[in-house]
């Protein structure tokens, strides 16, 4: 009995300390004067491996999700004779919800897990500590470029996802099912408001990018430096990121579109 209480307490303390460590970790890696000369090429390299290499999966999933939305939406809307609104449905679904959320989930799986594994292995092979020995701060040298690359890539990927998805929806609805393409676009333009829908979607993706990258990098940096530790950290990255994204999405949607 007493043991279980002590256990619970220890768990709570561990949880608190890891939250604290992750906050300190974030502020230590981001605060400070950025060194443009040395930092910029590092950031480029990370933007390439996080952003550019994620492009393929984002474009392909965006296309298929847009096409499925077009197909499903058409079958539902045709019952009410309002298949002209299919553009509105596809665009609002993608821009408000699916774009940021699915991109974040794919991002966590594709880039987040890779980040965790890479940093975890650096820790396990003591590259991070040898950097410290040489007087190079690993937080600035290794972590900061990855964090920034994640923050920058995620909104861009999400916008590409939305654009491709809307185009995919057009492909199915207009080219295949024969919705008039004028009504596809004009109804969409009448219903989608830039400052509400698209900007809110971008805000969501910025928040998700921040959370996913933070979780991924922190899990890698904080992992137990063994093979099991790295694998557990990678799993945690994907699980925590997905849960955080879905939970935050609900909160953000409630704040943005819930009407309070």
């Amino acid at each position, binding site marked *: 009995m007493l043991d279980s209480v002590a256990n619970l307490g220890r768990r709570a303390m561990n949880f608190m300390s890891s939250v604290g460590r992750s906050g300190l970790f974030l502020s230590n890696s981001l605060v400070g004067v950025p060194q443009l000369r040395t930092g910029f090429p590092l950031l480029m390299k990370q*933007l*390439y491996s996080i952003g550019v290499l994620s492009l393929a999966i984002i474009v392909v999933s965006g296309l298929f999700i847009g096409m499925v939305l077009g197909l499903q939406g058409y079958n539902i809307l045709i019952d009410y004779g309002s298949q002209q609104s299919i553009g509105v449905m596809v665009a609002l679904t993608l821009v408000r919800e699916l774009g940021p959320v699915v991109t974040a989930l794919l991002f966590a799986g594709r880039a987040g897990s890779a980040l965790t594994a890479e940093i975890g292995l650096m820790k396990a092979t003591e590259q991070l500590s040898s950097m410290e020995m040489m007087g190079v701060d690993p937080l600035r040298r290794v972590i900061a470029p990855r964090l920034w690359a994640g923050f920058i890539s995620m909104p*861009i990927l999400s*916008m590409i996802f939305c*654009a491709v998805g809307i185009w995919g929806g057009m492909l199915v609805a207009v080219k295949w099912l024969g919705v008039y393409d004028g009504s596809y676009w004009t109804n969409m333009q009448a219903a989608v408001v*830039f400052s509400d829908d698209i900007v809110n979607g971008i805000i969501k993706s910025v928040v998700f990018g921040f959370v996913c990258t933070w979780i991924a990098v922190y899990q890698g940096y904080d992992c137990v430096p063994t093979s099991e530790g790295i694998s557990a950290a990678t799993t945690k990255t994907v699980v925590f990121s997905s849960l955080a994204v879905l939970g935050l999405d609900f909160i953000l949607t409630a704040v943005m579109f819930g009407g309070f």
Partner: protein
Amino acid sequence: MRQRTVEILVGLFMIVGMASLAFLAIQVSGLSIQAPEQTYKLYADFNDIGGLQVRGKVSLAGVTIGRIGAITLDRKTYQAKVEMDIYRSVDNIPTDSIAVIRTAGLLGEKYVDISVGADTKNMKAGDYFYSTQSALNLEKLIGSFAAGNK
């Protein structure tokens, strides 16, 4: 991979991102680049606005000429005071025009339609419409039919 190739690919990635944003802004939300039009305010008191909303449109002959700025309750007369932002370019609304609340389609949104009068004088900023027609309330209408009222 060489640094230069990486830079070029990242640049391309950024440009594709910007292009997507432009596509979302222009093609999807129909955002126009020109600055929002200058407006002046007109007011109208309605007995019942029946679901008219802020940012709804104000139209004349079906053409949008402004939007609803604010809706407040007049505490003295118990009427709804609707503030409309009308485009500066439409500065010749006769003073005896009537503001009518209409519905787009059968179940669509409510908007204010301005039925043009014949006066030679035009309304200025801050003027009130001298006559208004409230929203057609379908439920009330059916209710009065059912009760046998005229």
